[in-house]
């Protein structure tokens, strides 16, 4: 197999490009992770491994700011992801199992609108909207904006999953005297779970990571992790930022691994 004389599929150079691609993708992350353990206060010199910048994150001069920002970020991400996933699950059920209806295309357009409109435009529009209706900017405005913005991210994996589930399962349940509600909760929901979990995790990460919209609707003095980091970075990259980045990177990797495991453990296919 390995020594095929003429492999129709192989193009010389594609493998090196792929490797280059991976290096470009990972090099910055690896470098930042490594330098977050630098004992030196200078960015350029390597002075051995130390956890001082992690200690600095938790007890240094900026620790209070980051602690509050982190708490805000996680609270918003959890509520926004939960809410948008619930909304998306119901919507996907109607879109995939609701038969043909006139408003389907309109509904799909509305659901995917946050993906089509450039994020900065959504941010501006949301700011103008809250301002016009006299809604004071703060944590609640961030949360509302995140719920809306996260819906398509939760929706797409759920819809994809549901389309993969044959409708005969629900028909079998109805045939065996289940009500539609029972067919939904006892059959469709458990089968959709991998999609729902992926949708939730994706929405969670999107909310946790969001900078642009948050930056517009947050109001003075309210910070989430990304806006706090951005504020800090504006004055130059400091080692404690690299430590925070590394920890956030860890959260992301845990999330993505979870979602990978969920999709792998799914044996219904």
């Amino acid at each position: 197999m390995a020594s095929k004389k003429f492999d129709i599929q192989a193009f010389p150079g594609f493998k090196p490009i792929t490797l280059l691609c991976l290096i470009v993708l990972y090099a910055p992350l690896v470098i930042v992770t490594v330098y977050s353990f630098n004992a030196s206060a200078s960015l350029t010199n390597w002075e051995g491994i130390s956890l001082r910048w992690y200690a600095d994150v938790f007890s240094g001069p900026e620790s209070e700011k980051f602690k509050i920002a982190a708490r805000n970020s996680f609270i918003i991400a959890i509520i926004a992801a939960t809410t948008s996933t619930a909304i998306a699950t119901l919507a996907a059920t109607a879109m995939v199992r609701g038969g043909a209806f006139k408003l389907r295309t309109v509904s799909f357009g509305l659901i995917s609108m946050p993906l089509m409109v450039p994020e900065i435009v959504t941010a501006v529009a949301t700011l103008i909207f809250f301002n016009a209706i006299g809604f004071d900017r703060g944590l609640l405005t961030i949360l509302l904006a995140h719920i809306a913005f996260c819906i398509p991210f939760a929706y797409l994996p759920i819809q994809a999953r549901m389309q993969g589930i044959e409708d005969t399962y629900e028909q079998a349940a109805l045939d065996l005297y289940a009500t539609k509600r029972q067919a939904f909760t006892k059959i469709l929901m458990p089968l959709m779970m991998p999609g729902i979990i992926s949708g939730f995790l994706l929405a969670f990460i999107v909310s946790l990571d969001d900078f642009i919209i948050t930056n517009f609707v947050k109001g003075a003095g309210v910070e989430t992790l990304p806006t706090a980091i951005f504020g800090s970075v504006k004055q130059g990259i400091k080692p404690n930022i690299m430590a925070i980045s590394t920890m956030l990177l860890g959260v992301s990797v845990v999330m993505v691994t979870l979602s990978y495991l969920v999709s792998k453990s799914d044996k219904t296919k």
Partner: protein
Amino acid sequence: MAAGAASGGSATTDTYKEARTWLLMPAWVTLSFLILAPVLLMLVYSFLTKEFRGGVVWEFSLSAYDQFFFDRGLFGDEPAKIEWTYITIFWRSIWQAGAATLLSFLIGFPTAYFIATQPERVRPMWVFLITIPYWVNLLIRTVSMKFLLRDQGPLNDFLISTGLIDSPLHIVNTNFAVQLGLFYSYLPFMVLPIYAAVERYNFTLSEAAADLYATKMTILRRVLLPAVKPGVIAGCILVFVPSMGSFLAPDLLGGAKNFMIGSLIEEQFKGNAGNWPFGAAASMILLTMVLIILLIFARQQAKAEKET
């Protein structure tokens, strides 16, 4: 694809037909109030008069659009001239996004192709590797990129220590740094659709072409690329559109000289110096462009689907 339509079973089933209005209601309400209404309101705002401490006066005015396109205003005393400042920024955004898209394609296509031709068992692992960085906070990725590329950063240190260069390369605060940042931000969006298209590609077509004396390059150009075109177009759109309106990469990697439309818009809403109608108008112009691109794309895709 009549066979696909027949064996694919029912495209729409109607188990929850009666309940669908109630099931969709939360999504309709949330998105209408928090996305659709705001965008419409923004359109209205772009035709209002600015107030000097931020915000608007409810008086109809075309001055925001006027200011975007014309010097001294179309309705002023002196003859109007085209105002190039903002058009240049807009043009730079298109150019930067285009360059980033091209870069993503040149790297992303071979990558996607390589992954799609790996044994089926290991393909998910490769896809996983490509997508992990996307899950990492965009801000952190951009900051990492800046750290890596700085004049005294690890990349320059490395290049100098190997003797390839004598003095550091100035990458940060150039157009190229922005392109690199955009490429880095959205690469997975290029790789995934192309990967999906190549995976569906029937390699017997390549064999048939080779059998008819085509070289590998000819096969790539005349057979493979046309077959996976929808995936390529999808990838390009998915990189180009967010790049156009991006804010972080130009702001952190580009510096003041390499302003893009995202930064221009952001500036209008910060502090008291802003001009809300102008920001709304710039957003509308950006949104219109993006929607036109998406519309053309949707038509292309519909045509491509008919052909296959």
